[in-house]
């Protein structure tokens, strides 16, 4: 067993886990944060993406022990009570989700994308989301939502 201490959505979480525990298993099974999903096993679908120290990372291709001491943000950590984060709100406004399974990963990727470039072009967004797959939307409304979300985030600072 290994002891890990990870800050998740602002809360320190410390526990004993088997070293083979993936970060996504730690989040889903140990903490009950089931908003982070597993869609593949080859690091391609992006359903499991979370932010680690602000960077978008595939939580299914990382051991929880590798995140020891890190600051992790999951989809559950974005909304302020009943008020959606501007990027979440943009996804709703632009109908950027249908089944919603891939959505948390897209939002986390979008947040890093906007952190790196405040006003991304359509091409920036398309290339910036290459690590996320969606089978429902044809990406069309996701691109629009990320653009709008970036603008909204710039407005609120």
């Amino acid at each position, binding site marked *: 067993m290994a002891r890990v201490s990870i800050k998740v959505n602002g809360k320190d979480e410390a526990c004993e886990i088997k070293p083979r525990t993936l970060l996504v298993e730690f989040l889903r099974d140990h903490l009950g944060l089931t908003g982070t999903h597993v869609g593949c096993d080859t690091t391609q679908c992006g359903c499991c993406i979370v932010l680690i120290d602000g960077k978008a990372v595939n939580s299914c291709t990382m051991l929880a022990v590798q995140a020891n001491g890190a600051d992790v943000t999951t989809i559950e950590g974005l909304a302020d009570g009943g008020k959606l984060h501007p990027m979440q709100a943009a996804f709703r406004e632009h109908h950027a989700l249908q089944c919603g399974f891939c959505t948390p990963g897209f939002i986390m990727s979008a947040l890093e994308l906007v952190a790196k470039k405040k006003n991304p072009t359509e091409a920036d967004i398309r290339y910036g989301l290459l690590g996320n797959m969606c*089978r429902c*939307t044809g990406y069309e409304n*996701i691109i629009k939502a990320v653009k709008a979300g970036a603008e909204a985030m710039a407005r609120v600072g």
Partner: protein
Amino acid sequence: MNQVDASSFHEIGRSVRRKEDFRLLTGKGHFADDYNMPGQAWTVMVRSPHAHARIVRIDAAKARAMPGVLAVFSGADCAADGLRPFNHNAVPSTKYDMKLTGPGGGSVFVGRHMLLPADKARYFGEAVAMVVAESREQAEDAADAVAVDYEPLRFLERTEDAVVPGAPAVWDEAPNNVLVDAFFGDHAATERAFAAADHVIGHEFHVGRIMPLPLEPRAGLAHYDAASGNYTLYFSTGGPGIVRQRRQFAAALAIDQEKLRLVALDTGGNFGTKNRPYVEHALALWAARKLGRPIKYRATRHESMLTEYQGRDLATKVELAMRKDGRFLAMRAENVMNVGAHCVSLSPLAKGAGLITGSYDIPAATLRARGIFTNTVPNNVMRSSGRPEVTFAIERLIDMAAAEFGFDRIALRRQNLIRPEQFPYTNAVGSTYDSATFEANMDLGMKIADWGGYEKRRQEAAARGRLRGLGFANYIESSTGSPRERAEITVTPTGRVEVVLGTQPSGQSHETSFAQVAADLLCVPIDNVEIILGDTEVVKEGGGSHSGRSMRHAATVLSLAAPELIEQGKALAADILGVAPADVDFAAGRFVSTRANRTFDFLELAKEAQARGGVLKVVKDNEMHTPVFPNGCAVCEVEVDPATGRVHLTRYAAVDDVGRCINPMTVDGQTHGSIAHGVGEALFEQICLDPASGRPLTESFEEYGMPSSTTLPPLTTEIVEVLSPTNPLGIKSGSEGATAGAPAAIISGLVDALKDFGIRDIAMPATPLAVWQAIENAKAGSQANNKARHGSWKWRA
């Protein structure tokens, strides 16, 4: 059917933002893998490493002795417990379905889908035993340790190999592997028309095997309560929905369906593959009873790709007879569906059979439709099942005819379209189309695609060394589906309008769009309407979500239920006001009477009902068989890098006549996804088997190409609303149509780009390798491109 008066609609037709979104955006959805219970054990399947093999012996002694292992079960154990094969209702049987028959006109033998087969494994990856252990890892270890002796048999991948004399039989009951052989249309009239024709164009196409691939892998948690004898399965599903799947699971487990509860709240995509039950869920329920533990199952992506029901795989030979002025005279077609190792659905074959003549007025046609067993994963419906295949054939054939005989491909289509005044129109194989304005669709599609600006874009591409092509296709599809639907509407004293329906969404926004319909029909605020789905504790009847049925059936049964609830309200209001029910009107959402001052809305009335010990509630059933025919067109532009064969889809526009559109935002969204599925099929997606072993080579997202954010262009879509006369709100269907037209449009554009090489056809998917080979072959003067990949079929063999 009487149409509902639309003049008072406030919500219908508006892009209402979704009720589903808050939970999905904040990580609070309930997907199949999100359920856990204390004390749960895990199951992992032992899967066949052969595509076709006799199971000689299963030795689980070593596995049973491993740490944490609770049980190992095989097909013999299932048989000993009296478990039954799944009844998949594989043969379409509603009133308007094309009637498929076995060889010689008899019944169709569909194989037997045992939960675990005891005799043979019939495709690579088929589960032959199950292991249950305390942890998933322990179950995986033990599954590796189960020793199965196989006697490998020759396996069949392609239908043309399966019908050759001497081919191995997938099922002893079908020694030549043929399960369907049916004929449609007027043979004599067709032959006469062909004999009199000036031109005949013919071709063979193969629309390949692909995977629906929703991003949520299969998972589930099964629970058995020994005290009550009740089973519960928490999972995700689609298609026929929990009502039918409850019957199917109960029948397979040989239990009373009243003892089984299915809960499927959020489903992470479907596209058809979740439309039929899976053995792992049934086995988990069975093991939960046998072991007295909750049993959890979760497929890896790899496992999903090995075993999820697949789609398409139709070989078609088509011929079109024409007059020298371009008028279409007759068509004949021979469609062969590869159904896989056992048959879970013949819907693709039947749906396509009814639409072979497409959007065109073709006076005579014949069709021979066959279904063939092979040693491949069972082939199921997939988004727009059956329609993309036949759309591809007729639309590509028209392009070929135009090129061959010197017609303009657009003018040739216009000349032969069914005209608005011909509706209702019965086509030459017996399908009666309800309504459409095909030529207006074409005009609109060409306008939003900037058809006129194409030549300039082509020249600009040529200056960059790229070959640009312009593609076009019309499509018509049929929406039928399970004919029964029930609505239960309760107005609660707390001010909610609860609507229970038996559909099964997997992203189609039912909680929002159904609420729009209910709100308008009952004149209540949409925020007060709650749509309840996905739990057999409350959903007792309903047909699920497939074949574009949900909105049409839901809105129809709601439009029948709403007047009854209004009558109840009038009666109650009359009672309260002390007037005759006939003196109460329902106007602008209020129950009013000229004989009293007091008025009520539904919510106020519900409180009154409670005070009187009653409830405002209606349960309404409806059965509706008449199909509708959504239709539209697609225009696209592609660019080819002739040095590498890479195809870039650069522009895409689609027009879809969905009948009355309830929520344009969600319909457009589903159209985008629908296009993406067609793009994937045309350019990227294919299942490849290792020819030696039958092992799939496309068993991960690393090998199976799909559209991405960088390979799809911006999508331009327009909704057309030609109301269908078949149902009260005039609804047809959205979400599948664009898939039907996309492959034909894209290959049309690609062939246009490559026409100077003399290329007439390219097999799908048009991967860079395939396009490069086509160009090389054309340069070498070979005709190989112009033949379909799959072998030729004899007429009336």
